[in-house]
């Protein structure tokens, strides 16, 4: 057993300023999620410059899972991509802020607000 597995879906949504790639996580994000998190990132279409992370269906997230999100942000930074996030619970918004991730991504309550932030 390693807890619930991580399911990941990838979407392209159109916001006012053009298309945005959305990575939707579901289940647990832990040390066992490396393939799901970083593998999905590596499979993003060429030219994906605006990425939105959807945590609204994540049930359990620990520091190893947060480290995978940081690794994704490192890779995105190298590729000139921008990452924004939404759907974190208030507790994990607090944890992301404590860890300092909010210096490199912005947290939004929902998809619509996050999309709009790309155009701000």
């Amino acid at each position: 057993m390693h807890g619930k597995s991580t399911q990941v879906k990838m979407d392209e949504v159109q916001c006012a300023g053009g298309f945005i790639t959305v990575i939707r996580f579901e289940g647990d994000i832990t040390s066992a999620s490396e393939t799901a998190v970083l593998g999905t990132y590596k499979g993003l279409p060429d030219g994906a410059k605006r990425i939105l992370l959807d945590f609204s269906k994540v049930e359990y997230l620990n520091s190893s899972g947060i480290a995978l999100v940081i690794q994704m942000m490192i890779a995105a930074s190298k590729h000139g991509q921008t990452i924004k996030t939404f759907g974190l619970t208030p507790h994990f918004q607090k944890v992301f802020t404590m860890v300092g991730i909010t210096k490199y991504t912005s947290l939004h309550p929902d998809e619509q607000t996050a999309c709009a932030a790309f155009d701000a």
Partner: protein
Amino acid sequence: MDNNPSTIELHIPSRLGYEKIAMNTAASAASIMGFTNERIEDLKTAVAEACINAMEHGNKLDESLSVGVVLSMNADSLEVKVRDTGAGAPGHGIAPDIDKKMHEEEKARGMGMFLIQALVDEAEWVSSPRTGSYARMVIHLHHTGE
């Protein structure tokens, strides 16, 4: 709660994922004691991180070794001890440096002890190579906040 502490003891295998058993038991105890949801979420993360540290660093993921979790429900506080067979935690909860992590000068991982210290009212790590080491965490019912 009366003044006599109620104690709950668990032994979980050093298998990642099983920390959720301790986490959810601690959450149930905190809920019975009347802690707010915000404090319960803080405790859940702290207990899960302490168990993961005990499994990975203390017991080296040897599934034949268990992690002991003792919850002591007092009149106005909940104490959680997480014990392993290791020599003790290598350091304390130093705040992660996100800039160093983003520039790959620091490992992306290694935030567990920091989170524990930041999320509970009291946290300490006791090293005892002979009898087993433990992390001790306490949350108080009448927490004043930051």
